């Protein structure tokens, strides 16, 4: 016999985009051996949990270190800080500090992309 419908719809909750981005960023910082174990399906369930924790703690640590960060353009009279600034020593840094008060993305991105250690183009603000 067919059960009567309760009228409730199943709602699949999606992870918020920001959270997803955070996880991806955390995974990017995992050691290569961990990434390989995940990619080749060699990681056990316990390991996967560990890697999740590791990724979370890495990203939390880096957030603490850099202060509260916002994803957007620079606020007036602030210097932007690119994610890659941690490892870039030239280019990005010099162009940011001298002229980046309006739109950090365009200023930084051009000089930063391709520099050793550059990790991409996420403009972040406010750490200074």
């Amino acid at each position, binding site marked *: 016999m067919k059960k009567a419908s309760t009228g409730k719809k199943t709602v699949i909750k999606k992870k918020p985009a920001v959270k997803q981005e955070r996880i991806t960023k955390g995974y990017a*910082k*995992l*050691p*290569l*051996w961990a990434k*390989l174990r995940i990619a*080749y399906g060699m990681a056990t369930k316990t390991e996967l949990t560990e890697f999740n924790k590791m990724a979370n703690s890495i990203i939390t640590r880096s957030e603490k270190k850099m202060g509260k960060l916002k994803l957007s353009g620079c606020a007036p009279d602030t210097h932007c800080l690119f994610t890659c600034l941690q490892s870039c020593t030239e280019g990005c840094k010099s162009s940011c500090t001298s002229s980046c008060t309006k739109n950090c993305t365009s200023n930084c991105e051009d000089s930063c992309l*391709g520099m050793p250690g550059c990790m991409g183009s996420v403009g972040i603000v406010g750490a200074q």
Partner: protein
Amino acid sequence: MSMNACYFLLTPDCNMSCRYCFQRNGVRSAKKVHASGAVANKQTIDRFAAFCKKNGIERVEFFGGEPLLYKDTFLYAARTLLDTVPGLKLGIVTNGTLIDEEIMRFFEQENVSVLLSLDGKRSRHNLMRGGFDRISHWFDRLVAKGQTTVAMQVSVTKGLFQHVRFIWKLGFPSVYLNVIQNYGWYQSVDIDRFESEYDAALQAMLAGEGKLVCAIAMHRTLEASQYEVKCGITQTGLACDWQGLLYPCHRTPELGTSFTFGDVRNGVSKRKERLCRARINRQCFKSASASEYPLVSFCPITVYQRNGNFSGSWSPMFCELINRKAKVVAKYHYEINKYCLTNLSAVENENANVDTTHLDHGVIGNCTDRQ
């Protein structure tokens, strides 16, 4: 190689003609490479020694061609360097066929570290390069003196592990399995076969049969979150050829003299050096192939020899073999960690990544870039 180390290419000539030798594929003709008669003279050697002293070079690695081809030149160079630069460490990359009593005694007395090209059992070694019987009677003394690493070319993947085991059984504790980088050498069948042979060799290392130096180096590399370019040419490599010209790596002389950035008399031109390294880095390691194979640093010299520029495509087979190597090392990550803690000294652990990271970029025997 680090900034305080330098290769010294005494001659481009070699007494052998190995099947996979990259120098045969270079811009020079095979004839010229193997019998040019070019060799460093005393003046160049003296100036090189003075250059090393002035620039704080702590380690010199003899390279060629075959550095023992001109024995008197080698001995003169080695002794001059030791007399001129106090505390200098010497190393040599050799096929071993020209070792004689005098050379062997010199190795023993001066604690010269030797990177010996040995491709496995007699049959395999002779198939690839020849001369097994000319080196075999020195095995015991090379083992006894210590500081001898065997560089074994992967080349033929079939039965690879048995040949590694053979070398371990000879008493050589350390083997570096060097994936040769030639375009077109490997076939698709080699990929899976290599993985299973490497897996077996790694398991044998973990069981205590011997040390697979390349696996330990790879293990260290995989600790980072991003793969860094391991090619010394982009940052720290330094080599001096038989004419006293300075290059960013030991293989650059194969491209002729257009990539020199100084000489032993006048030293390094910092501007030229910066431009040269930046150009190679930009063209080779920011190329499409570099993005496609993020775990690999393919040799820019090989790319140049094939394409006439540094930005050409990398050998996909070579890159896939390196990927498989990384895969196997990641598979045994925890076991290798344990192995390093129990089997390697603190110094070995620290240096595991120093001397061998770059061997995969070429055929050793005549090619190593021990970054």
